[in-house]
């Protein structure tokens, strides 16, 4: 794709905003602070016009009602690929007393007190990005009880940035690896809830209030949210968003619990569908129950998936995770093509390493099936489809994924690495 790509935020309660100057526009639809959905359009297809805005509002709000109104079966349970399993019946839709009231009940943004939340941000040698992230946090409608910045650099490069903001708890964790940093953050945090975001993220003003409300309403051990692209200025960012699907696009809450785990475990529970490390929060009790993040995994170690491995453990031990997409953060995708390639390689390597770790800890064969059968078949299907549709970019990314997978396989034959099975750090 060439030319400009713009992200446009469209509040379907209000007049349509002007069409940005761009070849392609990613519309993100909102109902106030409630994210409703996405649509990609060429500039020539815009503006949408009043009729299409109304048609979209109708369809998208109906989906929100089905996913949020307890009388209609909400919250929805996760299906095998993490998507919400429809629970709406005609009887329930018909019995809905007053649709306007039902909409009014789900629409308001949260104003819940977030002072019980410790926000942990792990950073490594990205002072400029961290500065933007910390500056954006000042706009939180409900500020957290504390902000803990864990500096994972050897040089302590984040210290001077933190000094520019009042009240930041600065923790240095020189042992490299995101899991070490996250664990240091959890140990330093004093709140009953520990929320994580990354240094390349800017949260929505209502983010922590929504997290707080989700924990008040549900007894889930973990709440994850929607990660939206902050911008799509470069080709690499667009590839990540469109070719790879970004961080997901589901806008309906989904409950991942014991049942989801039991149903999907035989074929490798797709725990990575639960969310992303750039937008997740845990009750402190979850760490007391399941231990801390596996320090062999994550950026700086095997590559990634320290978050999803923790979810796996949590679910295996009977816990639950709620995906609540109205808790929104905006992520700056990797801008350079070179960075994206290395990211996709380490994602896949980290993914395979987490599967090995899960197999070692629990003996669930689905993890091996994923490594040996599902991933190769995914590679093959993607290769054929990319060739057929002549998607060169996708092929290049796929090559990195295959390299990452091969590198991941090496963990299977590293006895020293695997010997540390099931020994997770504790609080």
């Amino acid at each position: 794709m060439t030319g400009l790509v713009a992200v446009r935020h469209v509040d379907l309660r209000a007049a349509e905003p002007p069409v940005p100057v761009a070849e392609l526009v990613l519309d993100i639809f909102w109902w106030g602070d409630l994210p409703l959905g996405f649509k990609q359009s060429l500039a020539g297809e815009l503006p949408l016009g009043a009729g299409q805005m109304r048609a979209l509002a109708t369809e998208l709000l109906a989906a929100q009602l089905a996913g949020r109104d307890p009388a209609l079966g909400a919250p929805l349970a996760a299906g095998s690929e993490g998507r919400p399993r429809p629970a709406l019946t005609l009887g329930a839709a018909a019995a809905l007393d007053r649709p306007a009231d039902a909409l009014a009940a789900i629409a308001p943004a949260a104003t819940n007190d977030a002072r019980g939340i410790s926000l942990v941000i792990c950073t490594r040698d990205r002072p400029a990005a961290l500065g933007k992230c910390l500056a954006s946090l000042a706009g939180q409608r409900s500020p957290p009880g504390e902000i803990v910045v864990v500096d994972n650099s050897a040089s302590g490069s984040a210290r001077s940035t933190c000094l520019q903001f009042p009240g930041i708890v600065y923790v240095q964790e020189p042992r490299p690896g995101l899991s070490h940093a996250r664990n240091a953050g959890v140990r330093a945090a004093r709140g009953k809830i520990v929320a994580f975001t990354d240094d390349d993220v800017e949260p929505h003003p209502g983010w922590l209030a929504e997290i707080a409300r989700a924990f008040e309403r549900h007894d889930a051990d973990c709440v994850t949210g929607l990660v939206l692209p902050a911008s799509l200025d470069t080709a690499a960012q667009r590839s990540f968003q469109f070719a790879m699907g970004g961080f997901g696009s589901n806008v309906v809450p989904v409950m991942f619990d014991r049942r989801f785990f039991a149903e999907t475990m035989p074929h490798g529970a797709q725990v990575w569908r639960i969310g992303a490390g750039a937008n997740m929060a845990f009750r402190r009790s979850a760490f007391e129950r399941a231990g801390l993040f596996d320090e062999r995994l994550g950026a700086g170690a095997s590559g990634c998936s320290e978050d999803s491995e923790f979810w796996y453990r949590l679910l295996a031990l009977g816990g639950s995770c709620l995906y609540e997409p109205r808790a929104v953060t905006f992520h700056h995708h990797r801008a350079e093509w070179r960075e994206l390639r290395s990211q996709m390689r380490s994602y896949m390597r980290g993914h395979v390493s987490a599967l090995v770790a899960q197999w070692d800890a629990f003996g669930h064969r689905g993890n091996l099936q994923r490594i040996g059968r599902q991933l190769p078949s995914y590679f093959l299907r993607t290769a054929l489809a990319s060739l057929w549709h002549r998607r060169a970019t996708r092929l290049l990314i796929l090559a990195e994924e295959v390299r990452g997978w091969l590198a991941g396989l090496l963990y299977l034959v590293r006895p020293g690495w695997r010997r540390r099975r099931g020994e997770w750090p504790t609080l």
Partner: protein
Amino acid sequence: MGYRLVEIDFAQPLRPIALAADQNGCGIVARWHGRLVGFHLERCEPGATLSVAHLQRIADARFAQAVLAARVAEALPERSPEAADTTLSVVICTKDRAQRLARLLHSLHEAKRDSTFRSVEVIVVDNASTDQSTRDAAAGFGDVRYVLERRTGLNFARNAALAAATGQLIAYLDDDVVVDRCWLAGLAEAWRSRPDAGGFTGLVLPFRLDTEAQVHFEAIGGFGRGFARLEYRQVRFAKSLFPVGSGEIGAGCNMAFDRKLLVGIGGFDEALDTGAPLPGGGDLDIFYRVLRSGRTMVYEPRYAVYHEHRETIAQLRRQYWSWGLGMMAFLIKSRRSDPELKARHSGMVRWWFGDRSKALWKAILRGGMRDVRFVLAELWGGVVGLLGEYDRSLARVAAIREAAR
């Protein structure tokens, strides 16, 4: 073997549906307080009875979300003007099908009861019928204008109507459809939602599913374009060939246009949709030209008709053939008349033959001789269309014009 076609308003108490011994399925047109919300084909054992519980399961899976959306629509603030403050001409082009014409006029009469248009005129264009019956059928309905077009060819008839009509909007219907009782309300709603649109298309549901051919046609998608309102412009995301091959917008048996625009772009191409030798391509061509004029087209599901599908397998096979033929004739014509998009036309020719070859391969693997012959007919139509059918049609049409002088 055929399917039973039923209309169910799911806001009313449900009753079981009994199939006859020669029915092995059921087509369900679903409504909610009269509003169309969905269509579903359910295969069953011959002579079976669909219990209320079974119908409820179908409704939960297929219609509940649409019902919820209809209820949400009630709750959203309505746009201001209720009435469609415009005039409408409804045109029916017909040839030697007096019975079907009467059936359609009757349904139109019903739909007109609660029209919100400033005025609605109905024009029947008799396309050189061989006897008086068409004229008599039209005369049976008081307020119908009768226009005779002696030159045989659907697009001759459509252009004759264009010249005779006075409405700001002109809606075309084929004589093998019946309109839904909300047809006019649906068109009015579509127009109100975008008064500057160049054209409108609507939902086409089956009129009956009595034969294997009719069930087969509906099962592969029929003329159905779904229950979501859509808008189309000159370009579409992830459809690099659009608006070439704009068949997804709708079907020629149910379409409406801004009459002035249609006149301005020269009306319908009389060398397409000519009947027997080249019975197709006309709707693709007019949708394409409206979009290329820079105007929007709106698809509105409530603007719905019921279409009598081809009755026999042989007729359906011929229809496959005519799709291939019409598609290629349209592409050859447009490539010539709109050189700016030449690459897209060539791309569509390649894509179409590739896609149909894939379909042929799949049909062979499934081993159904009938499906193989359908695809072969379509491919053969495509080849004939590619090899000069449009030029032959131009020559034929010129001769018809000459003879009529």
